[in-house]
């Protein structure tokens, strides 16, 4: 999974897989479009979300994300809002840079100790409270 969020444009991109030729299509939500596989319209490869900050509830509740994927979205969103790099955030939560990157890719099975640090460091971040 890859996530890209730009604070200035408030655009968020979520991709569940790479290397799959895809095409953007509308959804019922006017701020959200989906990327579907060219070979199979029913396979959703990713999403583009406009006004992402206002649509965070929708992202976390309606896109069918797993807990790990929601955490990846939340961490990327918080980090970009704080204008920090992944390296800087890895230091803040006391993990290696590669581990942090894998958290934002939803590839890392996060331990309770790291979760505690995340909660402690970002306890005022509403988005985290929506995830757990």
């Amino acid at each position, binding site marked *: 999974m890859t996530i*890209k969020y730009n604070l200035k*444009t408030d655009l968020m991109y979520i991709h569940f897989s*790479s290397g799959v030729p*895809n095409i953007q*299509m509308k959804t019922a939500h006017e701020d959200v479009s989906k990327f579907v596989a060219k070979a199979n319209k029913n396979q959703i490869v990713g999403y583009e979300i406009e006004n992402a900050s206002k649509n965070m509830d929708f992202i976390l509740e309606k896109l069918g994300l797993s807990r790990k994927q929601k955490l990846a979205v939340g961490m990327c969103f918080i980090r970009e809002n704080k204008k920090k790099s992944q390296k800087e955030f890895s230091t803040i939560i006391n993990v290696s840079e590669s581990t942090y990157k894998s958290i934002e890719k939803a590839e890392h099975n996060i331990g309770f100790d790291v979760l505690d640090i995340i909660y402690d460091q970002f306890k005022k971040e509403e988005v985290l409270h929506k995830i757990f």
Partner: protein
Amino acid sequence: MEIRDDENKRIETVDAVGGLKVEIWTSDFQHALEGHPEVTLDRIRQALESPGQVIESQKSNRVCLFYSIGVKDREFGLIYFCVVVGVVRAGKGKLETAYETSYIKNGKVLFKKGGPK
């Protein structure tokens, strides 16, 4: 290929239609490529330099969408190649991403090939 934060480099600057200089950075190009294997630098250049339409996004702040001329597809109807550009300041933009799309978004038409604004 993973690009570290300190390895992010400008690949090139494209003179887009309308006088906007659009910078393409490795991290943004890599992201576009990972999500959309149909993306190439040539297609990005072509859409920026010779688009079918340019739309100012209604939804996102300071975003311009450069659409290629539509190509007919049996499954999806018309397909456009879209380059998403964030306007950094007057006359300067930055590639956000690029992808193929089945529709053109609503917004102010900044440019339309062969037609008035």
